[in-house]
């Protein structure tokens, strides 16, 4: 099972001929992911890595190959358009890796997506991985930029706003012998497609997921909302971590959304909300995995 994607998911890459998109398309192919199409306007008819057909439009690529999920690697000025093209093509899931999209563009994209069947993950995110069952989790579905080999197939769901901090958590789990069902990086932007709460709900409903790690950071109130829901509804143990306890207020800490404004969105307030919901909070990023073990009891 896992959530959102599995080894059978057919993936297309928007921006496959760019250096960033091409590199990660290749890494996904190497991991055993079914990358079945690429999309670059004007390059339809060509092939990526001598095997993946390239199309001019997402609609065409999806119709020809049966791809249901897209990963977007196009530069920020074109990213909103790329997301909307994926939505228009009726894809199940669009994962936008692109960092640096203007907030107003994302505001319009989210509003335009109301009522559509497509789920968006990101932008400004590492993507998601459902680990495979082969050696070093080979054969899984890797969408985005995460290193595949750090994963291990198993039953812990991971959701996080950050990239490398997610890898840190996944690696700790794998070292402890705990595999993952699906690891989702939802991205560090203030307006994104999928929230912590959305992922908790999916993990809660997923029979393969037995426990969850939720990683948050300063800014906004998404972690608090997820915690409030979990307190009432989540049947599975959750371990949490919040980054940014030492971040000065009013400063954007790398991620566009990681900012304490007007005294709101502090790490302490978020940790408190998590604890209040019965979530075990890791004191340091070094013991996210150990905290999950504790949460499992």
């Amino acid at each position, binding site marked *: 099972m896992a959530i959102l994607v599995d080894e059978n998911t057919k993936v297309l890459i928007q921006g496959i001929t760019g250096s960033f998109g091409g590199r990660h398309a290749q890494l996904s192919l190497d991991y055993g992911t079914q990358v079945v199409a690429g999309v670059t306007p004007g390059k339809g008819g060509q092939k990526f890595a001598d095997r993946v057909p390239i199309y001019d439009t997402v609609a065409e690529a999806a119709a020809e190959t049966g791809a249901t999920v897209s990963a977007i690697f196009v530069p920020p000025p074109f990213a909103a358009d790329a997301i909307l093209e994926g939505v228009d093509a009726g894809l199940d899931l669009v994962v936008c890796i692109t960092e640096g999209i203007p*907030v107003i563009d994302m505001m319009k994209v989210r*509003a335009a997506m109301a009522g559509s069947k497509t789920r968006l993950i990101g932008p400004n995110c590492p993507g998601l991985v459902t680990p495979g069952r082969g050696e070093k989790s080979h054969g899984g579905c890797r969408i985005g930029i995460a290193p595949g080999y750090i994963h291990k197939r198993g039953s812990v769901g991971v959701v996080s706003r950050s990239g490398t*901090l997610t890898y840190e958590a996944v690696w700790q789990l794998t070292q402890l012998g705990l595999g993952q069902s699906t690891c989702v990086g939802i991205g560090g932007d203030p307006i994104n497609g999928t929230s912590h709460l959305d992922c908790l709900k999916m993990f809660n409903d997923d029979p393969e997921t037995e426990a969850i790690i939720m990683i948050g950071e300063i800014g906004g109130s998404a972690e608090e909302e997820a915690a409030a829901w979990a307190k009432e509804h989540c049947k599975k143990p959750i371990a949490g971590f919040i980054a940014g306890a030492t971040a000065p207020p009013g400063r954007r800490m*790398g991620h566009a959304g990681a900012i304490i404004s007007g005294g709101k969105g502090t*790490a302490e307030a978020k940790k408190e909300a998590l604890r209040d919901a019965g979530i075990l909070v890791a004191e340091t*990023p*070094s013991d996210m995995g150990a905290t999950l073990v504790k949460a499992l009891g």
Partner: protein
Amino acid sequence: MNIHEYQAKELFEKYGVPTPKGKVANNAAEARAIAEELGGSNVVVKAQVHAGGRGKGTFKNGFKGGVHLVNSAAEAGDIAEKMIGQVLVTHQTGEEGKLVNKVLIAQSVDIAKEYYLAILMDRDSRGPVIVASTEGGVNIEEVAEHTPEKILNEKIHPLLGLQAYQTRKLAAKLGFQGDQAKAFGKLLGALYKLFISCDCSMVEVNPLVLTPDGQVLALDAKFNFDDNALYRHPEIEAMRDPSEEDPREVEASKYGLNYIGLDGNIACLVNGAGLAMATMDIIKYCGGEPANFLDVGGGASKEQVTNAFKIILGDPNVKGILVNIFGGIMDCNVIAEGIVAASKEVGLSLPLVVRLEGNNVEAGKKTLAESGLNLISGDNLADAADKVVKAIAA
């Protein structure tokens, strides 16, 4: 990104937001000429720095007040003379204060009532929100805390934009009547257009004023722009004043590094923003104080590590360095070689603790161990943080 008051005034004029007449002066002669143009009497001279509390501030030369009302062009020139080239200290600038390079010369207006008006991008409703209050000219956060009922919030539909009924509703709630309500509506419409057209993340007018003769004017403004959107606004990017920013941050941004200076003495160099924040946190947890936030990006090249070292070492408070790299895709050995080369190039003499994890990590650790450099290897993040805190205490 922030801008100066005079630049805000220029944007107001461009978008038709009514504001008192005024212009920026670079020296006393220009200040006199502008004051003359404005009629000489009833003119304010305002020091231009990116900080609040200017009126109550003091210059390091002893001159009091960054905002002065004057009654002649000559006086405007004299005051400008005392401000330009001097350092103004306010409750927001810190002890070091800020150098005043320009002054704004503006018409002083009589005020019947002050209001607060802001438009900001609200992440919860995923769209713009207008915030308004009859309590203007004061700290709005205090109003929100003590009398939240006096704060009006109006959510704007992301695709439809500001609707006429919303403007009428706000005007009525703020107590504007007849022609005043029309004047308020015109100002709000223009302000909203500016907010969207310039990719603002916030525009705050405090105070918005009603004059005895029924004009509604934006008296002072604070802008915040979405950095992600600056690529499509070169005219706003050009308003950037690097002298108002931390020079280390300006330097870091040239190399695609994300650096924020802090007060501690343990520098950190990390790949990824979330991990960089978490690394600062664990330094503090282990009893140290982080000197900075520094994200070299999800990957990490030798050039970036070298430049990052140079920026870190530009901070005289730094007594030790913690490098924390999770090399997921990148070869850890390449990163290790980068760290070694960078350390040698900058002649690093401070304690350096390196924690490497990920792809080809064994080779990376070997490279570090055989480098001949006096560096300490951390087995994991907690171990590395602990070691750097102990190293600077030793």
